[in-house]
């Protein structure tokens, strides 16, 4: 019999569903964080992992703006930078043991960064959130340049060109972590990355978080259900600043230095790219983007001089062909697998994959040959023992042929798919 006390249809997902969709991923994430050290990562891996953690929180905070609230910021690094700077100062106060500071564990830095980022967001957001869309984007660009320029002028706050350094081994130990060796810093970063992920996710579940999405979709209508869109944007902006500041606090401990460049357009642009490549429409998109881009940014350069070019190509490719980013691809694939439609699309996918691989082969060859030619050291690109000098016809065959075949394959799939849907 139906439960007579329920007078309405319960639309909310069931308990089990909630657990599966919300709690379980978090547990798995925490588990992953906890398991990683068991593999005995090398120091360079640890550095990489730590930077990934920082960038995950940073990218998530950025996406609170772009993906969730539809606010394109070109200056989000300002908040990471200001939060980080504040933490570096706090770390120096701790080291100097002035006042009560001596009792503060370095472990708590991200909390300070959170506060400083929120404050910065509150101050800077006040004028800039009065506009949306392109004016907002332009203001954020101006603010970033302004703050970065100011960074070079106020030496006592920002340390000029040199920036400000600190030592993470001061203050009382927390949880038995001296934070000296990198593997201890890993635990610190892992802890705060988890806090950051849970925090930004929780935010999406609050009324304000939902309203920020509504404001993105239709700011006008929001006004007619009782909200001031400027106010919504402003509050979201403060939170985005706060989480960016938190990432700054994580970075202050990991890198122990902040310089005015941390405030500039360059890191702001990088996080924009990371979030977008990851997929701004999904909560997990920026996480994936941060992981992939951090990995590529730090390791690709070991393999090839053309790594920036590859990053650029990848970004442009994503913008043009995969607007939903890595997460879009991952979820799309997952949906297909789960609904058991794999055999329907398998052929198309295989061809597409083949086409992409062929085009990648030719692009990589072109880039590698070009970079070696440009270096002028007379080095020759020799993949799999194949000698591809820039002058040899074989090289051009390897560049042109796969590209053409790949492009044709991709076009064929695209065409046959559009026929199916129409």
């Amino acid at each position: 019999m139906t439960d007579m006390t329920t007078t309405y249809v319960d639309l909310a997902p069931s308990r089990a569903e909630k657990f599966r969709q919300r709690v379980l991923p978090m547990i798995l994430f925490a588990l992953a964080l906890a398991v990683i050290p068991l593999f005995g990562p090398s120091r360079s891996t640890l550095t990489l992992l730590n930077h990934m953690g920082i960038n995950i929180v940073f990218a998530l905070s950025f996406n609170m703006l772009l993906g969730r609230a539809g606010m394109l910021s070109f200056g989000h690094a300002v908040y990471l930078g200001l939060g980080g700077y504040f933490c570096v100062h706090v770390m120096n106060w701790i080291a100097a043991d002035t006042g009560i500071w001596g009792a503060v564990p370095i472990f708590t830095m991200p909390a300070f960064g959170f506060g400083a980022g929120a404050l910065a967001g509150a101050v800077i957001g006040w004028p800039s959130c009065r506009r949306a869309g392109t004016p907002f984007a332009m203001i954020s660009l101006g603010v970033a340049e302004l703050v970065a320029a100011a960074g070079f002028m106020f030496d006592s706050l920002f340390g000029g060109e040199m920036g400000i350094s600190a030592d993470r081994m001061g203050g009382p130990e927390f949880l038995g972590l001296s934070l000296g060796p990198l593997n201890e810093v890993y635990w610190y970063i892992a802890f705060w990355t988890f806090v950051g992920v849970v925090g930004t996710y929780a935010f999406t579940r609050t009324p304000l978080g939902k309203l920020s999405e509504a404001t993105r979709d239709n700011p006008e209508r929001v006004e007619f259900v009782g909200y001031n869109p400027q106010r919504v944007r402003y509050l979201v902006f403060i939170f985005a600043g706060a989480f960016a500041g938190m990432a700054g606090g994580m970075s202050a401990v990991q890198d122990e230095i902040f310089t005015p460049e941390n405030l500039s357009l360059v890191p702001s642009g990088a996080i924009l790219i990371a979030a977008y490549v990851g997929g701004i429409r999904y909560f997990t998109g920026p996480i994936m983007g941060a992981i992939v881009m951090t990995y590529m940014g730090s390791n690709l350069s070991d393999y090839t001089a053309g790594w920036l070019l590859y990053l650029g190509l990848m970004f442009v490719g994503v913008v043009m062909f995969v607007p939903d980013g890595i997460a879009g691809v991952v979820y799309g694939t997952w949906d297909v697998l789960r609904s058991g439609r794999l055999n329907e699309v398998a052929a198309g996918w295989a061809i597409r994959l083949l086409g992409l691989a062929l085009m990648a082969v030719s692009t990589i060859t072109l880039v590698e040959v070009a970079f070696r030619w440009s270096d002028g050291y007379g080095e020759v690109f020799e993949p799999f023992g194949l000698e591809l000098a820039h002058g040899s016809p074989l090289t051009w065959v390897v560049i042109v042929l796969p590209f053409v075949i790949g492009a044709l394959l991709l076009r064929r799939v695209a065409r046959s798919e559009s026929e199916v849907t129409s």
Partner: protein
Amino acid sequence: METVVFAVLNGVIYGLLLFMLSSGLTLIFSMMGVLNFAHASFYMLGAYFAYTLMEGSNFWIALFIAPVLVGLAGMVVERYGLRKVHARGHVAELLFTFGLAYLIDEVVKIFWGRTAVNYKVPELLDFPLFTLYGAQYPAYRIFILLVAILMLVALWYLLRRTRAGLIIQAALTHPHMVGHLGHNVPMIFMMVFGAGCALAGLAGVIGGNYFITDPAMAVQMGPIVFVVVVVGGLGSLEGAFIAAMIIGLLQTSAVSINASLADIFGFLGLAGTSEVGGITIASMAPMLPFLLLVVVLMVRPTGLMGDREV
């Protein structure tokens, strides 16, 4: 006195260069609504193309060919890139050009190396035109002045006085209607983008040897070009001109001023020994344009001369 004269002279030249650079962006931005982040990259391409062309020919040939080449590059970008993302709105377009800027930077590094190339002022113009207060004034700067003015007039004529200009303007607000009247709007957009890029290329040809031609030139000029266009007001050539002038004069004269904040605000009790008081006006020069940008956008979101919000 001499400080003022020099500040004005240099400010005007710098302003004109900025105008040349931003006129192309104004064109693109106002006609197509595309915030072209790669605009300064096309400026850079102009300089490099001219440098390469000059090796085989001379400056005057480069002056004409290089912008055309840059324009063609722009058209290719529009046709095979921008047009594809156009349907997904301005943010996608903007991100596309953002990525494009990265790509052009890298490609330039492949072809021309990571350090500056020796792109020189043509010998014909490499002489001091006159001497003022003991300093010589190079003829090339007057040449810049002339080209910039020529460009301003030509652009203004094109936009306001020809049917092509009318079509372009109509296509911005009513692209479909213009299409129904039998005009090829995608083609027009491609031409506009190409023309805008060609203008940036021209600025590169002229600015590359006045300043320095290196792979960082795009990144350094990029943000300031936006400032000019946005401060001037969307779609307003006159606005871009005025904004470029203001910024040129502001930045150059700031450098020439010896005062510090304490000298100016001293009466407010700001001590020269304090950090804020010790900041010189000259050292604030790089941040002035951005201050202007933020203030203008907040007070007048349409920009100085614009009639639309950015």
